[in-house]
């Protein structure tokens, strides 16, 4: 193995180890399917490996990998998934009190919620879903997401506001944790296992 290849493999190993779980989780939430997420994750890292020579180091490595993940998802699943295009849309402690007022869920309920929540997420258009996953689940900051998605910080903030409102609207009509009269879509089944 020549020195260049050895160096490239070492560089790739570091990138893979630091990003693999985040990328897999991102793709899992985008697809709602573990197998598809695994296939896409492999594709993302294959592209990353091939593109290492072109990575100029000016961008953050995480940003670069997320960009590859977003493009890979778009390219591969564009045909498979119908796109929704018609959506329009201190007391420092007060918000904490609001969060605390939300009842704690038992383990079994969390399992049920997992299936329903993924369905609600699937109902959002990608323009909202991508920033929502990156911000709420992956803990990225607004400026990081704006760099990944090539839009302004303000644009990401607007998308997050709309994504939260849309998620709330869906849950108000479909989630039994919002209204016990709402039918629970997953009825307690583990949707991930399907």
């Amino acid at each position, binding site marked *: 193995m020549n020195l260049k290849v050895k160096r490239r493999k070492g560089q790739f190993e570091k990138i893979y180890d630091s990003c693999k779980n985040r990328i897999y989780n991102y793709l899992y939430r985008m697809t709602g399917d573990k197998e598809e997420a695994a296939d896409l994750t492999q594709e993302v890292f294959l592209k990353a490996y091939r593109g290492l020579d072109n990575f100029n180091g000016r961008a953050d490595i995480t940003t670069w990998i997320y960009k590859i993940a977003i493009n890979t998802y778009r390219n591969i699943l564009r045909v498979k998934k119908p796109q929704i295009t018609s959506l329009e849309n201190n007391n420092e402690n007060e918000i904490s009190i609001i969060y605390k007022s939300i009842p704690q869920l038992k383990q079994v309920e969390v399992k049920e919620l997992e299936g329903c*929540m993924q369905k609600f997420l699937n109902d959002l258009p990608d323009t909202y879903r991508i920033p929502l996953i990156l911000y709420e689940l992956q803990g990225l900051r607004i400026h990081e997401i704006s760099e990944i998605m090539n839009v302004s910080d303000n644009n990401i903030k607007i998308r997050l506001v709309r994504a939260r409102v849309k998620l709330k609207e869906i849950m108000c009509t479909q989630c039994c944790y919002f209204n016990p009269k709402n039918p629970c879509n997953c009825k307690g089944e583990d949707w991930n296992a399907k």
Partner: protein
Amino acid sequence: MNCPEFKKLIFEYMEKEMDNVTKKEFQLHLSTCKDCERDLMEIAKAVSLFRRLKKIAVPEALDSKIQNLFY
């Protein structure tokens, strides 16, 4: 502060990105408008439930496959 202004600021309030003057106006409206109070509560609840989605680790089979391919 009126209802549309309140709704525009919900994100800043939840993320604690609000200056003190705006926060007082926001909270004043919150204490007097039941509709906006319900709106904020429901959004906070939706976000809180959403954040409980679990993280999963890369499957071992995939991990081995990638390591065999590239390491």
